[in-house]
């Protein structure tokens, strides 16, 4: 074996090893000490069943607000009959699309919001949600 060939192999292997070690140490440095389980992604299939489900996004249950008027937001079946009732008042709407946003007045203290969705077809199931909201004049 020629001296030049030996040197070339020597430097080649050396450089390779150096880079490999460097990479291994860098990866170890980046990786967290504890491996946390990645959350399972929630797949929401947008089919007939999800569309006809009453979902209330706002207000959150047992939330405290200092505002006299809130917005009740969520999703419901298009053209269903939506009734939002509280001890103070009620709103009756027919959503023209799947989402709804209804301004709603609150009474001082506890407000029990009873939300009912009557589907457009009488064979479908009536759905209801009850959410408590506290309108309190405090910070």
């Amino acid at each position, binding site marked *: *074996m020629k001296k030049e060939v*030996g040197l070339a*192999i*020597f430097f080649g*292997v*050396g450089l390779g*090893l*150096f880079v490999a*070690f*460097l990479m291994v*140490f860098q990866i170890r440095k980046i990786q967290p000490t504890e491996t946390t389980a990645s959350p399972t992604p929630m797949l929401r299939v947008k089919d007939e069943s999800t569309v006809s489900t009453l979902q209330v996004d706002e207000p959150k249950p*047992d939330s*405290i607000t200092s505002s006299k008027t809130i917005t009740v937001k969520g999703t419901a079946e298009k053209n269903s*009959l939506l*009734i939002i*009732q*509280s*001890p103070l008042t*009620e709103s*009756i*709407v*027919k959503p023209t699309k799947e989402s709804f946003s209804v301004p709603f007045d609150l*009474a*001082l*203290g*506890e407000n*029990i*919001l*009873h939300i*009912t969705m*009557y589907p*457009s*077809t*009488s064979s479908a199931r*009536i759905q*209801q949600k*009850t959410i*408590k909201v*506290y309108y*309190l*004049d*405090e910070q």
Partner: protein
Amino acid sequence: MKYFTYSLIALTIIAQSGVHAQSPSPSASPVPTNVVTREVQNLKDKLATKVAELRKLNHKAVSGVVASISGKTITLTDSSGKSLQVKIDDVLTKAFSISGTTKKEVKPDTIEKGDYIITTGPMVENTVTANTIYIDEQYIVGSGKITEANATDFTLSVMSEDNEKLTIDIENNTKRLLVDSKTLAKETIGFTKIKVGDTVHYVLKKTGTEKIKGRYSAVRIVIIPQEYFVAQ
């Protein structure tokens, strides 16, 4: 080849020690004082923000009927039947009585067994350290089908959505509304317009002193006539 093997081993050892040597020593470069001060301040700010967030997170409102009062501790029973403890602080806790749209400050010791109260404050497990207590009225909000409309004693028999039989007293001051099956407009109606088979959305007042189980006075009712569902 022998030289090559020895060189390879030597290079491996050198490479390993070389990588370790790359980690900076904390004492290698002195950190300026102003940088340390800034970092401490940042840390303080972060801590303050975190504490505020945690306080906000633990700041809850709970409501229920006063089951018992023992010294400075109130035991509540919430709507699900769960028992909660409310701690009263002589200095910090304020109490109010809600009447309509106004609230009036009262002494915490005016709270009695059977009162319906809302309390706010930091909550740890089942104990709330009360910042504020509100004495309020308790309502039942729900809906059901009318199975009987008694025009003699102005009562409605209703089968609720939870299959609970209710007797609703329609008082003179009960707000009675009927939904138009075509326009969905609401109109005030008399008792005679209410029919068996209609759907009723009700708000009932619960005093805790009801003589007959399942019988309550109505605050407001909204009637959806069965014609609405027939037309669907």
